[in-house]
């Protein structure tokens, strides 16, 4: 099993979710986060006091999938989240040791 974490631009969330649904992903966890990479923020000015806003709002998506599906999921996210501008985000894949569906007790592949 793999745990896929993707940091994407907030306005791309709906497109990514639809694409994942289309390839059979049945659930995900979404968090609002802040971050920066190469994309710099804006400067705010309040009566002469300037503040550079370093952190930009992003969306983090976490999906647990069977290993066979991982590549398809990564491709789906990458293709839909891309704009070509700095700040599109990143995708990380880590190996998942265990998974459990709490309601039924199903484990590992059956839980996903």
């Amino acid at each position: 099993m793999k745990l896929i974490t993707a940091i994407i631009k907030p306005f791309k969330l709906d497109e990514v979710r639809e694409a994942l649904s289309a390839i059979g992903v049945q659930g995900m966890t979404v968090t609002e986060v802040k971050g920066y990479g190469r994309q710099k923020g804006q400067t705010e000015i309040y009566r002469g006091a300037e503040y550079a806003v370093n952190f930009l709002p992003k969306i983090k998506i976490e999906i647990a999938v069977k290993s066979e599906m991982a590549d398809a999921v990564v491709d789906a996210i990458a293709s839909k989240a891309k704009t070509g501008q700095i700040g599109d985000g990143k995708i990380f894949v880590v190996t998942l040791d265990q998974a459990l569906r709490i309601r039924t007790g199903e484990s590992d592949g059956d839980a996903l």
Partner: protein
Amino acid sequence: MKLLDYKKVALGLAAGAGALIATTGAAFAAAAPPDPLNSGDTAWMITSSALVLLMTIPGLALFYAGMVRKKNMLATAAQSFGATCIITVLWMIIGYSVAFTTNPDSHLNQFIGNFNYLMLGPMGLKAISPLAGTIPESVYMFFQMTFAIITPALIAGAIADRMKFSAFMWFMSLWLLFIYCPIAHWVWGGGWLGSMGALDYAGGTVVHLNAGTAGLVACLMLGKRVGYGSENMAPHNLLFALIGASLLWVGWFGFNAGSAVTAGYNAGMAAAATQIATAAAALGWMFSEWLIAKKPSVLGMISGAVAGLVAITPASGFVNPTGALIIGVAAGVVCYIASVWVKKWLGYDDALDTWGVHGVGGALGAMMTGMFASNAINSASHGWLIDGNFGQMWIQFIDVAAVFVYCGIGTFIILKIIDIVIGLRVSREVEVEGMDINLHGETIHG
């Protein structure tokens, strides 16, 4: 048929009774002195008082609270609210007496009123102040109370984010009694500045220069906030500040037009002048900022409006619309430079620009009142440019200087005493963690 008869009889009786009452009333009127009370003036003045109170709660409370960081919003609003409460009581107990009664010693009356109005004892139901002959004294006292409330509350802007609530409440109380009340008496209560001919319709010097000067002294004494110049102190919610500024704008009609103390021509022209100057000042600040900083900010346009309100305050009942327009534009541009650029160059932490807007705006407005006051608008005034009386500029300057010096020194003494006894500033730990949770045990959630 019978119904019509009853109607006729009833009408006849009513007419007869009416005639009886009218003639009896006339007879009584001839016997007793006519009641000087004017219901139009009274209604307007009660309304004005409520409008001016609205300026502090929640106008000023929201204006300031919206501009500070989230961790200090409640504490900032608490300063306006707390000031309202304590000053109301102190005004009733002694403030009104000191400011607006006549001291039997004419020499002393130049500087301070009488002490016989403690607890408003002599103020009966039908009492009327010689300073406002057509309204109940209870209304005049309440009207002046709302001015006494907002003036010290304004000072909170300069020392935002770092003053203890206990020290603040003491400061409000002592400043009201020793600084505001005497100065109000000097200009409006029969004292030396008013007698000299100083023109301050609604408090450009008594309220705004006064509060602004105190703010400047206070922010210098308290020192800069931790992290000033390096940490992000962006306003938490500028929409609150906009709502607050809008409440200030609308409430200000009670402030300026209410200072006519009557409901008539002067009140009307003061209201018109107020609206014109405020909008002009907002544009003045907005366009200055657009030109220099490339973007017109919301904070800028609402600050410009407040600057205009401040500057037109002393002039409102003395100037014509053109004078109001010029005063407004000048205030917008000058206060923008003072609050943004001069403050940056000199480096003091006047957190919410109490000096930059109220101090500078008040002084500017007072001087421009001398320039644009018109005898045609208000027979009590002879200004420089329209009436040719340059001497008025000198009188205005003395007013400005006297308020600045007395307030500056007095504020310093009061704050020094409070600092020695209980300390003015919160600890560094409290300041960094936040005033709301530490001073009041509350937080804004979400």
